[in-house]
C-alpha cells in the first residue's frame, strides 16, 4: 500500500540515486590526449601550428610543437581550454579560449588544430580507437 510515508521514502531514495549519478558524472576523471597534428574532420582539413601552449581548466599548461601529442587528466564533462600560439622565439602571437564537452573514451583526443580552426567539436578519435 502506497501511503505518504512510503512515497517520501521512494522520493528520497530516487533523489539519492540521482545525486550518485551526478557525483559520478561530474567527478569522473578522464585521461585525455592532446594532439597538435594535422587532422581532417567532416572533409575539412586543419593544419597544426608550429608551437602551442594549452591549459585545461586553469591547470598546468602543456607545450606542444607541430606533430606532438601529450596526455593529461581532466575531471567532469565540461572543460575550459586556453590555447596560446607561440612564435619561434616563444612569444604568444595568438590566444584562443573556449569550452568543450567530454564526449566518450572513444573520442578522448583533443585536437588543437581543430579547436583553433573552429571545428564543431575539438574531440576526435583517440589513438587506441584509430
Amino acid at each position, binding site marked *: 500500500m502506497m501511503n505518504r510515508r512510503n512515497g517520501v521514502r521512494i522520493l528520497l531514495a530516487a533523489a*539519492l540515486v540521482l*545525486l*550518485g549519478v551526478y*557525483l*559520478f558524472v*561530474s*567527478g*569522473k*576523471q*578522464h585521461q585525455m590526449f592532446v594532439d597538435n597534428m594535422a587532422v581532417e574532420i567532416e572533409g575539412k582539413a586543419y593544419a597544426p601550428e608550429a608551437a602551442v601552449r594549452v591549459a585545461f581548466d586553469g591547470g598546468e599548461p602543456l607545450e606542444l610543437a607541430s606533430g606532438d601529442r601529450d596526455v593529461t587528466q581532466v*575531471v567532469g564533462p565540461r572543460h575550459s581550454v586556453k590555447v596560446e600560439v607561440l612564435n619561434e622565439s616563444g612569444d604568444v602571437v595568438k590566444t584562443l579560449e573556449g569550452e568543450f564537452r567530454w564526449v566518450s573514451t572513444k573520442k578522448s583526443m583533443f585536437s588543437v588544430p581543430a579547436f583553433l580552426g573552429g571545428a564543431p567539436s575539438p574531440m576526435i578519435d583517440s589513438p587506441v580507437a584509430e
Partner: protein
Amino acid sequence: MKALTTKEKIQHFLISNAVPIIFILMSAVAIPLSGFSPTYLVQEMLIRLARNSFLVLSLIIPIVAGMGLNFGMVLGAMAGQIGLILVSDWAVVGMRGLLLAALIGTPISVALGYICGAVLNRAKGREMVTSYILGFFVNGIYQLTVLYAFGKLIPISNAELVLSRGYGIRNAINLAGMRHGLDYLIPLRVGNLNVPLGTYLTIALFCLFIVWFRRTKLGQDMRAIGQDMGVAGAAGIPVEKTRIIAIIISTVLACYGQIIFLQNIGTMNTYNSHDQAGMFAIAALLIGGATVSKATIPNVFVGVILFHLMFVVSPMAGKQLMGQAQIGEYFRVFVSYGIIAISLALHAWKRQKDRERARRSLRGEA
C-alpha cells in the same frame, strides 16, 4: 545528603580524570625529550585532530544509549572502504569522489548497523565484547568479498586495483585523486601552518548534530535507556528499536569517519585499515577522560590530542632516552592499549566507590 569536603572533591576530580592526567604528565616528560619544535607539533596535531575526531565522535551516541563503547564501529569503517574501492575503480576524484564513497557506504553501513543492533539486543549487558567479536565476524565477510568477489562478481576495470591473478583487490590502494579532498577544500594557511578547514567545519557540524540530537525526543529516549532500560521500557520507550537506531547512527558515522580518515592519509590498506579504527578511536576517547557510560564532545578532542601527541613524541623520546626509537614506539603501544584496560578497571572501581559514597551519605556517615 552530606556535601563533599574539599579533600573529597579533589579526590573525586583526580579519580574522574585519572587517565587524561596520566597522559598529560607523560606528554610533559616526553615533549622536551623528543626535541620537536612547537610549530611541528602544532601542525601534526592539527592534521591528526582532523583525521581522527569524526571517527571518535561516532562513539558518543551508543554511550548515551547505555551500550558502552561501540567496538562494532569497524563495520562502518569497512562499509566506507568498500565505497572508496568502488570510487577508486570508477576514477571519481576529489570531494565528489568522497561524497560518492559516502553515498555507497551509507546503505551498507545501515544494513550492518541494523544487524549489529539486533545482535546486541540479544546480548544486553555484554554489548562491548559482543560488538568486538561481531567485528571479527564481519571482517571475515569483508575479506571474502574484497578478496574473491571484487573482480569476479563485482566488476573492477582498473588493473592497478586488482591482484595479478585477475580478481581480488590489492593490499594497498592509492587514494591520490581523493587525498585531502575534504581537508583542503577551503585552503587556509596560518603562518607556517596548513589548516584542514574543510574537515574542521565538517567536525563542527557533527558536534552541533550531537548537541541537537541529544535534545530531540529520540536523544532523550536514548538517555533514558542508558540510565535504566527497565524504567525506560515501562515508560513506553521502544527500548530495542531505539538501541538499534543508536548503533545504526554510530555505524553510518563511523563509515563517514573512516572515509575522512583515509582521505587524510591518502593510502588505503585494504585488509588492515579498518582493523585498528575501532581500537584507536576507543583508546583516544578513553584517554580524553570518557568512560564506558559517559562521554562528551570535549573528551573526544582532549583524547585525540593526547593520544596522537604520544604517537608523535614517543619514538623520538625513546630514541633520545635509550638510543632506540623502537623502544619509545613499544612504550607508546603498551601505554595506549594498556590504557583501555586501565580505563575499564578504573570505571569499575569508580562505580564501586560512587556506590559506597552514596551509601555512606544516605546513612549520614562522614
